[in-house]
């Protein structure tokens, strides 16, 4: 008998599935119609175009519909749907609901599709005669992407993963006994929720930006392919150029946002770790930058057409490769944030191989036109050096790709290679020299003239910036004392790249903003290089723990420091106190106060407080997030690497809960420590008010004057008493309840002139502590300013190219 399940809302799923099939079918239909549209010989009426546009329209509506529907389901907590259950829960704040949408693979494919649709609208509106060939490729891409959501199975081959699958139909649940109950839904109290790492504002804006960047690389690709298909082998470059600049802008911003996210909320202490996932989006960007430069060369003098074609198509194919790397599960052991395999490895591979073969086939087909060998660019021309710059970028991309692809190489050749043990160092050893060369080319680049340059004039123009940069480099090097020559080289070339481009903007362009795109963007890249150079190579871990046993130079183990609650320890120029632990919902915040010593008064002055926190998450594991204080010239990064999360502080019970005491034999003036204070035996006092203590007149009574200083430098007095009545000795302990301490004067040892004092502590005095790491990143703001300049410069360049396109 069919089970009548209770409380399910199946209508949404049916609607969702209809929309998914519709989006797939209409993308395919639109692609076919566009194909016939540009192949139609008759000029009179283009009968295919309306159908192509109509099916694109339906496709667009379906994509928007799917996204809206999933968002609605997340918002309404419809946990009968697996995707909703898996990626959201009912306690999640509104602002992170969008992040649930793209936490899973299906959702992130949707975001990608969404941007293709948005960009396609612009193509249809603006591209004119290019509409059909470009849209044809875009719709083929969309067909592939839409198939990723189909969730069909043919004889064991899975096509896509459907976001509207019901929980009870999902493989993980279908065979569980409780799923057979009609009211199973009432047993599912809540969803699994969003990964705590993604509950961060960067994670709301970074993925959509990155996917827009991915989508933007598709358009130059579509122009290149469309150009080959329609025989306009040369004409495609000009209209594709603003798009590839747009791709540089958005993809670059997306990659940098990923770095900012890592810096702000991941624990590895830095913004770039050469993680495979980071690399996978950096590589297409590098290639796209190379592509754009050769396209500019082609626009100017008609050479480098073939390079333009190769690089434009390559950057899109690398985006697909990056998708393959991060989504096939192949990175498994080497990256912390790749998706797990959803069984779509084959499909992703076909997707990539299809476009690769298409691009290669079209280039062979049109080889005669593409390869037109024109005369070579003279060595003193700007185009020659731009071409060189492109080559360096490509070398850089090759190095990153090969190292990142180690898991793929292992799979292909059945090897057991692992990434280099110190991967970051390995990447840097290649990338820093390459970056130095790139920066050098950027310093010279704009001073070269197209076709031919008079070297003497050029040298004269560059002299000032060269001298200024040299002086700055010497100064900065004197200050930081870089230990590697390649760092000094990069310091010099990136400084020069900034200053010479600034000089170009002021003296050559006379501040003409409209023409300043290249110089401002180059200034930005120079600052990004300079900022990361200084911040990374000169970062200092100030939480140095000097007390530990050294395990040898290769095994330094002193970067984390133990800080007891209330203790103040020197760190760099600061003194740091762990003040308190504050629990707010799922967050435990640790208040860490940074103080500075005022030398005139001898007092500590509070500079600022940081609140690194641990986000509690039972199902997915707790995540600790650093907190960073930003200054103009530096950042102070503070991260709790370890903390006891259980609440140690037992309810303060006034009378009970003393642990067994510790006995100390002290002389006058001796100091001992307890978990929360300093204790000094100051003096003895024989003049005790016996009546007050209700003692007999004949008793021999001695009181110890004990001074107790707590962590807040507050003084307390304790006067435990030792009593000798005849031959019998006893004592009267004294308590400082505020500190949970009890003192007893046990005996006098006359021959040594010592006094035995017993100190007992309350259970609750078990000292709470955190292990923290603090790093100073000097001048990291140069990096962020660089990002802004890069964005502004690229934007100016886009506007200039669009204007040129209109006037042409």
């Amino acid at each position, binding site marked *: 008998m069919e089970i009548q399940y209770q409380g399910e809302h199946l209508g949404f799923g049916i609607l969702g599935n209809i929309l998914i099939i519709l989006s797939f079918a209409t993308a395919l239909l639109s692609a076919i119609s566009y194909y016939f549209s540009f192949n139609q010989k008759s000029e009179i009426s283009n009968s295919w175009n309306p159908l192509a546009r109509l099916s694109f329209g339906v496709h667009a509506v379906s994509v928007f519909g799917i996204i809206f529907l999933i968002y609605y389901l997340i918002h309404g907590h419809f946990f009968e749907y697996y995707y909703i259950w898996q990626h959201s829960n009912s306690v999640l704040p509104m602002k992170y609901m969008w992040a649930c949408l793209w936490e*899973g693979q299906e959702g992130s494919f949707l975001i990608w599709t969404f941007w293709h649709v948005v960009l396609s609208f612009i193509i249809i509106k603006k591209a004119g005669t290019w509409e059909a060939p470009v849209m044809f490729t875009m719709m083929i891409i969309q067909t592939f992407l839409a198939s990723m959501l189909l969730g069909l199975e043919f004889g064991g081959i899975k096509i896509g993963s459907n976001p509207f699958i019901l929980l009870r139909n999902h493989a993980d649940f279908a065979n569980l006994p409780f799923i057979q109950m009609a009211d199973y839904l009432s047993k599912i109290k809540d969803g699994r929720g969003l990964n705590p790492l993604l509950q961060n504002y960067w994670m709301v804006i970074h993925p959509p930006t990155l996917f827009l960047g991915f989508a933007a690389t598709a358009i130059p690709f579509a122009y290149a392919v469309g150009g080959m298909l329609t025989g306009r082998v040369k004409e495609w470059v000009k209209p594709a150029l603003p798009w590839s600049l747009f791709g540089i802008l958005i993809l670059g911003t997306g990659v940098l946002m990923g770095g900012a996210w890592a810096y702000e909320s991941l624990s590895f202490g830095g913004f770039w770790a050469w993680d495979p996932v980071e690399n996978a989006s950096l590589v297409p960007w590098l290639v796209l930058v190379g592509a754009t430069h050769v396209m500019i060369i082609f626009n100017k003098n008609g050479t480098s057409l073939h390079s333009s074609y190769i690089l434009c198509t390559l950057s899109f194919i690398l985006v697909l490769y990056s998708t393959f790397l991060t989504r096939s599960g192949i990175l498994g*052991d080497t990256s912390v944030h790749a998706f797990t395999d959803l069984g779509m490895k084959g499909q992703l591979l076909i997707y990539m191989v299809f476009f690769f073969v298409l691009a290669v086939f079209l280039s062979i087909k049109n080889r005669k036109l593409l390869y037109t060998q024109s005369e070579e660019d003279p060595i003193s021309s700007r185009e020659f050096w731009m071409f060189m710059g492109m080559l360096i970028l490509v070398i850089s991309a090759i190095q990153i790709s090969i190292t990142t692809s180690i898991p793929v190489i292992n799979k292909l050749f059945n090897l057991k290679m692992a990434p280099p043990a110190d991967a970051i160092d*390995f990447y840097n050893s290649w990338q820093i020299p390459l970056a130095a060369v790139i920066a050098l080319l950027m310093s010279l680049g704009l001073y070269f003239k197209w076709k031919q340059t008079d070297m003497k004039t050029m040298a004269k123009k560059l002299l000032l910036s060269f001298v200024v940069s040299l002086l700055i480099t010497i100064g900065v090097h004197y200050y930081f004392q870089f230990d590697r020559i390649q760092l000094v080289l990069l310091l010099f070339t990136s400084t020069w790249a900034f200053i010479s481009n600034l000089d170009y903007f002021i003296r050559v362009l006379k501040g003409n903003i409209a023409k300043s795109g290249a110089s401002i963007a180059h200034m930005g890249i120079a600052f990004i290089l300079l900022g990361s150079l200084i911040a990374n190579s000169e970062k200092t871990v100030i939480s140095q723990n000097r007390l530990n046993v050294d*395990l040898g130079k290769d095994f330094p183990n002193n970067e984390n420091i133990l800080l007891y609650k209330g203790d103040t320890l020197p760190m760099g120029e600061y003194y740091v106190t762990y003040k308190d632990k504050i629990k707010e919902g799922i967050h435990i915040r640790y208040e860490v106060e940074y103080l500075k010593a005022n030398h005139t008064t001898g007092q500590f002055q509070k500079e600022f407080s940081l609140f690194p926190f641990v986000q509690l998450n039972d199902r997915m*594991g707790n*995540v600790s997030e650093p907190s960073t204080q930003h200054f103009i010239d530096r950042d102070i990064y503070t991260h709790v*690497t370890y903390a006891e999360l259980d609440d140690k502080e037992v309810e303060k019970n006034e009378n009970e809960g003393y642990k067994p005491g510790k006995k100390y034999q002290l002389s006058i003036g001796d100091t001992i420590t307890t978990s929360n204070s300093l204790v000094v035996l100051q003096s003895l006092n024989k003049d005790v008010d016996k009546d007050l203590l209700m003692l007999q007149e004949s008793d021999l009574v001695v009181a110890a004057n004990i001074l107790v200083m707590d962590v807040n430098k507050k003084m307390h007095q304790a006067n435990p008493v030792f009593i000798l009545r005849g031959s019998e000795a006893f004592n009267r302990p004294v308590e400082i309840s505020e500190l949970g301490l009890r003192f007893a004067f046990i005996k006098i040892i006359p021959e040594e002139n010592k006094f035995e004092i017993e100190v007992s502590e309350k259970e609750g005095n078990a000292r709470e502590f955190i292990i923290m790491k603090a790093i100073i990143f000097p001048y990291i703001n140069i990096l962020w300013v660089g990002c802004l300049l890069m964005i502004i410069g690229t934007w100016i360049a886009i506007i200039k190219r669009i204007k040129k396109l209109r006037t042409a």
Partner: protein
Amino acid sequence: MKKMHIIGIIIIAVALAVVVSTISNSSTYAPFKTAIENEGSTFHVVGKLNKEKEFIYNPEVNANLFGFYLVDNEGLEKKVLYNGSKPQDFERSEQIVVVGKMDGDEFHASQILMKCPSKYNGNQQDQLKAVSGDTEAAS
């Protein structure tokens, strides 16, 4: 010879250099046995945490020394010392990759990579566990 040809040759040479340097710098996934035979060389050892044995972590003595026992895929168990604080949720890890070298009878790890259940997208077992808690009464 044309300029472009020279450039082409340079590019190929650099690409080859990249490949060679990647291969020569790459580490190897290996069991403890290989690491013991090549003491002093760096390896990636994949294994599982021995949850029976206690961790060695006394932050109040040394916050930067964390030790545990790892059983590699061949079943050999070694004590691993890591020069940092104990990673969050270490107990929960299903699979661990340690990067480092043998030193005497101990493995000195400079890096620990953990595969935690369901940290990203999750795996089946953990999800089952997560739900079965709520459903005991029902089944």
